């Protein structure tokens, strides 16, 4: 599947606060529905760098959820304002325009595609990285694939998205377990503590782990999976100017030497394909 050639103007359908994050929605009338793990390059059509000259480049944002709309597809994005680009995206108002290129990059493979002997999936999301876990969880549930979801946050201020993306009927989905470093929700500690416990159990060796989150967490997930001989797919992030292979900025070191371009060779990467998840 290819993306429509070029950037297109999409309308903001909504933007809500969710804890310390925002979830904004775009109405995409032209693009195909995204696969879980894919991302879009996004830039507000107005007030994108006019004042201080930043943000200048579009921002690569993973899609958190997608649903058929009256005319096209509704795309949901989970964002936290951490710089001029994401700050501006957090301010988007319904009705305004956003330049959209995508869907871009590859997507998650089912557990059986990754490992023919695999029986189920373990999803591990951290912080804003819970976004691609949401759309992937729904796809797996629809296919009847057994799964467990582990989500971690630093603290209450740096958390959100659960009500909209991981709840049904007002309660957290039963397959979801939480961890928080400050103990405000679930296990007090790292989400990788929960993963370590799970991988130590007998039934986990037949699972495939899928993960997205900050580099230190991804590296812990990669190392744990490697230690237990469990296959994993990591949705990674890297500084990216274009999203379609032009800028060569998003280089990630490969396990067998050299670099991959995360935009066209990722963003979903097998754990054994990268030597180590480095801080960008």
């Amino acid at each position, binding site marked *: 599947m*290819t993306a429509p050639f070029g950037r297109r103007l999409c309308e903001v359908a909504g933007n809500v606060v969710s804890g310390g994050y925002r979830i904004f929605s775009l109405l995409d009338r032209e693009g195909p529905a995204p696969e879980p793990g894919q991302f879009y390059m996004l830039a507000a059509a107005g007030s994108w760098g006019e004042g201080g*000259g930043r943000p200048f*480049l579009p921002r690569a944002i993973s899609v958190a959820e997608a649903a058929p709309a009256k005319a096209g597809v509704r795309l949901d994005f989970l964002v936290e304002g951490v710089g001029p680009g994401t700050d501006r995206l957090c301010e988007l108002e319904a009705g305004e325009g956003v330049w959209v290129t995508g869907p871009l990059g590859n997507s998650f493979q089912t557990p059986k595609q990754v490992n023919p002997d695999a029986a189920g999936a373990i999803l591990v999301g951290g912080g804003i990285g819970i976004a691609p876990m949401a759309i992937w969880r729904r796809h797996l549930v629809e296919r009847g694939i057994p799964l467990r979801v582990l989500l971690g946050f630093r603290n209450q201020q740096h958390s959100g998205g659960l009500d909209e993306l991981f709840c049904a009927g007002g309660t957290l989905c039963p397959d979801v377990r939480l961890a928080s470093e400050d103990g405000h929700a679930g296990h007090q500690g790292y989400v990788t503590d929960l993963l370590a416990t799970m991988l130590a159990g007998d039934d986990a060796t037949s699972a495939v782990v899928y993960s997205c989150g900050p580099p230190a967490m991804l590296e812990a997930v990669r190392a744990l999976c490697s230690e237990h001989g469990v296959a994993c797919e990591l949705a990674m992030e890297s500084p990216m*100017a274009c999203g379609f292979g*032009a800028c060569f900025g998003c280089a990630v070191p490969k396990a067998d030497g050299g670099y991959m371009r995360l935009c066209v060779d990722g963003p979903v990467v097998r754990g054994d394909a990268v030597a180590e998840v480095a801080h960008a």
Partner: protein
Amino acid sequence: MPDFCGIQLEHPVINASGTYDAIAARRVFGDALLEDFPFSAFVSKTITPEARGGNQPRRIWETPAGMINSIGLPNKGLEGFLAEDLPQLAELPVPLIVSVMATNREDFSRLVAAIAAREEVAAIELNVSCPNVHSGLIVGEQPAETESLLAALRPLTEKPLIVKLTPNVAAPEAVAVAAESAGADAVSLINTLKASAIDPLTRAPALAAGHGGLSGPAVRPIALQQLRAVAAVTEIPLVGMGGIGSGADAAEFLASGATLVAVGTENFRDPRAGSRVANELETEVYEAPSRL
């Protein structure tokens, strides 16, 4: 219909080397890329004699109205380019210009001879923003180095040779004159400006290489001045570039002596920026010259 060194082009907008990977873009966007190709000629990423992996990340950093990059010229090397990339680039619907770089005259000659021999190649751009390993000098910063390199390469091909100037000199026009006198068919400018950024969180250089090259609208006035200075002392065609993002921007370069303009960083923001700039030039600028 611009004539550039005898090559007929549909419009005056091409890409800057290293800012568009047509092979990757075709994987991402499909054959729609070919049906509405954004540029009237395609300039490849710079090819070096041997394969290069490129620099360690971090490689890019956003700056006000621009970005700094230190990509490090990743490419498959001459052999890999000829075997894997050239056949795919030959499928593009526009003339192909191949950018090359080497660190000594022998390697430069080998590159130019091998690439000029391929009929798929319309012209060659010489990236001279590199050191000569024998002298230690950046070729494109020295009129004499540039002149002697061109003197060695000129006899190797009748295809147009374009010299890509570096802006990191006091007088780019002196290098342009040297290139012209030694037989260059055209000059392109500007390459990126040497620049640094500090990561506010670590107070350390933001890029792994410590520094890189600045591009984007921030450099446009500098590019225009260097273009004007070079145009004043040369007769050969000029390719102007540096922060072009619209037809109005392109018109400033054409009004300053450029035969063609190249879009670079704007491609990252808009994969069809080349077509848009060409259309804006045609419809907004030429038909409403008062907007200049």
